[in-house]
């Protein structure tokens, strides 16, 4: 608990300033526990994913250079993509794992078990990944 802040009469300086908030978490609160760190990584996983789509838009913009001028991203793009892929997989794992908690699907007098929902979500992810990968490879062949 925080000690009460005293305000000496007439004394200028920081001690005289009233506190508008009783307590603020320190900026590094998320470094205290491994679970907090993983939580923060999950929350920030959206950043590399968004960055990757920005890079894809750079490729789209390069299409305006025409057939002779078009150059896809190379080299460093692979390194960036590996980081983005790790973030995307972490987002997928954490979010689909929560599907059983979030979703309530009525079944008879109860609900579909949470484990079944999570397994279906990951099954859908595998199928969709295969379909999208197949379409992209087919489109580039």
């Amino acid at each position: 608990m925080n000690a009460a802040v005293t305000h000496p009469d007439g004394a200028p300086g920081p001690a005289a300033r009233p506190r508008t908030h009783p307590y603020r978490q320190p900026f590094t609160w998320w470094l205290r526990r491994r679970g907090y760190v993983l939580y923060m990584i999950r929350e920030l996983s959206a950043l590399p994913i968004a960055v990757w789509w920005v890079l894809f838009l750079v490729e789209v913009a390069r299409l305006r250079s025409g057939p002779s001028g078009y150059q896809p991203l190379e080299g460093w793009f692979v390194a960036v993509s590996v980081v983005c892929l790790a973030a995307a997989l972490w987002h997928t794992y954490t979010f689909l794992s929560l599907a059983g908690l979030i979703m309530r699907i009525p079944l008879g007098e109860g609900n579909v078990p949470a484990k079944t929902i999570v397994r279906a979500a990951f099954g859908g992810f595998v199928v969709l990944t295969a379909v999208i990968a197949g379409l992209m490879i087919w489109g580039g062949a």
Partner: protein
Amino acid sequence: MSTKETTGEAGYAPRPGPNRLQGLLWAGFANAAVLIALVAPAHILIQGVLAPLGLAPSFDRKYSTFASALSDPLVKIYLLVVIAASFYLFGHRTRYVIHELGVHGKLAVGLAMYGVAAAGTAVAAYLLFTLP
């Protein structure tokens, strides 16, 4: 726009009843997060890792296949939806991360982050739908 969060830190006074704007923002987040969880890894793996390394072909490595794919309006709409979802996911999550790191200007941060997401989506729409 709802005024339920606009009174600032000092004068925060939630109104009774459901906050429909917050509900819509979280519903948008849930849908965007599911979509990105299901489709983003496949795009990044093929387009960002395997194809540049020469381990698999991908539609965006050659002008002819890239332009051909993007000439289909369904592909454009699909990509725009995925990109919009990704930017929205980024804006929504970053809004709360900034709050959790101690920045309490929730309305200003929210407007900034959703604004970035909206601007990015507008740029994506322009690039995708104005190709020669």
